């Protein structure tokens, strides 16, 4: 058995410190420490969740109640133990005594190894990869959806505002439009110059002494597409008529008709938004009696808007949400890429393992088949009991052949090739098991080293956080979460299968010690022959 952290050899010992040996070559130990730290982190996290869970508190209370009930029942049910007869105990023991421990264990080991080789670890790993691939596709949907979602939302709002302004749409129409909208391809979706209505206004609009208003007060009422940022991230507003850039600190103007609005404050009412024009352009339009360049409405006046510092903040405010979304997506993609890489590495390892376990599998197959008295026919049904006479013949033949093998006369006698292979394989079994065990252990260590479960847990955390941050994408995150749970289950399944494989190999290793095996086999064969002879004589006596 080889462990990554072994006792240091004499030449590796560099320093002795308070009776402790310093590990100078930390390559292996640091891998262990990382794997250990990762698992410790997982444990503390799950313990934290467990402790904070309301369900656990409820469970605790329920358990206390159950324990209380159980305690009161214990004395009342105690007398039942007196009813258990000696006959029952003897009966159950006799059934186990009839089995031969060694052959039974070998059969069990064979069955496990057979099952695992049939299923193969690759199946699980490929399923894992498939799940990760689907997760990747789902996570790619979110940024696309994010863009489409915001545009769709604005187009919907614009449609509502248009309908309202025209006073043609009834409530039923609006509902119908709402219901149909997500299913219909909307040309407005691809229009970047959409005017969305005002969402909410908290501040009261104050008019300056000179009759102008500050942009900071009326920011929600200005069309978003007017705001631009240059290479240095300086925000400016662009006049849609002359295309002049108006940086912060300058003035712009909003056009209106004095008949439509009673005061400046009335201009900024839900849900209408306004375009700003350069003051010169506004002056010209009003003096020439032109209509509004965008809405084609009548105008006869304008209000000056002072561009103060808030415009930049307003633009920046929209960014963190997008950035956050990108960050989440990037995190998910990174973890998924890592998981896929680790799964690929493990698939490579498992390929080798199947090759390594194949000889052992075949040898065990031959051995078990022979004990069942049918060395040639090997199939899934061979673990079933064979006729007694057949088994007896096989065991007698094996005993004789083994004695000849020990005395060195096996070759000269000319036994069948299959029996020869079997006798040979008995000697090689131990080495085969050691080799296979080493390989399986390598895979288990690689699995630990890869930290698949830690990564999957990180993914779970990111998904939960992201779904809280973007409730509108909860359905996609929900799917991702389900897939993540599937990945987690597959990882656990992989670990369990490897663990069961290792347990069986360890048992086989213990059994297949060359001397022990020979002694045990001979002892079992003798016992088997004796028992079968007795049974046969009993049967012939009855006949």
């Amino acid at each position, binding site marked *: 058995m080889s462990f990554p*952290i072994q006792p240091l050899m004499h030449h590796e010992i560099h320093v002795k410190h308070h009776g402790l040996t310093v*590990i100078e070559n930390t390559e292996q130990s640091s891998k262990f*420490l990382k794997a250990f730290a990762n698992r410790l982190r997982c*444990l*503390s996290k799950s313990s934290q969740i467990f402790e904070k*869970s309301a*369900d656990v508190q*409820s469970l605790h209370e329920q358990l206390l109640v159950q324990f209380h009930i159980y305690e009161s029942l214990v004395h009342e049910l105690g007398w039942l133990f007196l009813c258990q007869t000696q006959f029952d105990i003897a009966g159950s023991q006799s059934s186990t005594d009839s089995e031969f421990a060694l052959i039974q264990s070998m059969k069990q080991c064979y069955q496990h190894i057979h099952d695992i080789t049939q299923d193969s670890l690759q199946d699980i790993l490929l399923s894992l990869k498939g799940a990760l691939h689907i997760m990747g596709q789902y996570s790619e949907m979110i940024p696309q959806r994010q863009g489409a979602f915001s545009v769709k939302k604005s187009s919907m709002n614009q449609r509502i505002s248009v309908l309202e302004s025209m006073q043609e749409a009834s409530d039923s129409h609006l509902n119908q439009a709402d219901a149909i909208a997500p299913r219909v391809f909307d040309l407005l979706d691809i229009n970047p110059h959409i005017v969305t209505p005002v969402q909410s206004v908290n501040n009261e609009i104050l008019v300056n002494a000179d009759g102008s208003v500050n942009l900071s007060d009326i920011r929600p009422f200005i069309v978003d597409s007017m705001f631009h940022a240059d290479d240095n991230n300086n925000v400016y507003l662009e006049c849609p008529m002359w295309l002049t850039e108006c940086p912060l600190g300058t003035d712009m103007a909003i056009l209106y008709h004095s008949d439509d609005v009673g005061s400046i404050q009335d201009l900024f009412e839900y849900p209408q938004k306004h375009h700003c024009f350069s003051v010169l352009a506004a002056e010209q339009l009003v003096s020439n009696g032109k209509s509004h360049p965008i809405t084609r409405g009548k105008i006869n006046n304008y209000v000056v808007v002072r561009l103060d510092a808030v415009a930049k903040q307003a633009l920046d405010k929209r960014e963190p949400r997008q950035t956050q979304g990108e960050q989440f997506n990037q995190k998910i993609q990174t973890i998924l890429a890592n998981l896929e890489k680790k799964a690929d590495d493990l698939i490579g390892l498992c390929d080798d393992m199947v090759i390594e376990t194949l000889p052992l599998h075949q040898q065990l197959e031959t051995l078990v088949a022979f004990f069942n008295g049918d060395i040639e026919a090997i199939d899934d049904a061979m673990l079933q009991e064979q006729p007694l006479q057949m088994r007896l013949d096989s065991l007698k033949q094996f005993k004789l052949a083994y004695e000849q093998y020990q005395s060195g006369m096996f070759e000269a006698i000319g036994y069948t090739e299959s029996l020869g292979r079997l006798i040979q394989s008995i000697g090689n079994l131990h080495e085969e098991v050691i080799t296979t065990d080493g390989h399986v252990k390598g895979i288990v260590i690689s699995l630990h080293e890869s930290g698949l479960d830690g990564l999957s847990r990180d993914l779970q955390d990111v998904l939960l956080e992201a779904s809280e941050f973007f409730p509108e994408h909860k359905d996609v995150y929900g799917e991702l979460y389900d897939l993540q749970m599937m990945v987690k289950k597959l990882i656990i399944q992989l670990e369990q299968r490897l663990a069961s494989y290792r347990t069986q190999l360890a048992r086989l290793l213990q059994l297949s010690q060359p001397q022990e095996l020979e002694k045990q086999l001979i002892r079992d064969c003798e016992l088997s022959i004796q028992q079968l002879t007795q049974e046969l004589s009993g049967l012939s006596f009855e006949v």
Partner: protein
Amino acid sequence: MSYVFASVKQGVREFKAVLYDLKQLRDCVLLWVSPSISAVVITNQHVMKRQFYSLKVSRDSIVLTMQSDYSNQDYELDLKRGIIKKNGEIHSLEALYLMSDYFQRALADVSEKKAQVFQK
């Protein structure tokens, strides 16, 4: 009644998750460390330093020792039974979080050569 069953089920699921993680932790030691080594120790103890921490990982437990001029504290996690102790007495999960934090710190210290890894 169904609510009770649902909560019990959820609680059991969470408890299983904790047990699974504890098993993972123990498996990690059993897999990596040869039985002939009684413990792997990480410490930033130095002759000139009177304040230090020491993390001892053995096949049965993790022990975090923190020592300064004024205090000496031992935290222990039994890897077989999952019992957490502080100075020999059963303690809350805080000790586990502390151990986890110190392990992360120890990892960083080892990579920066501020701490050393020993084996017993």
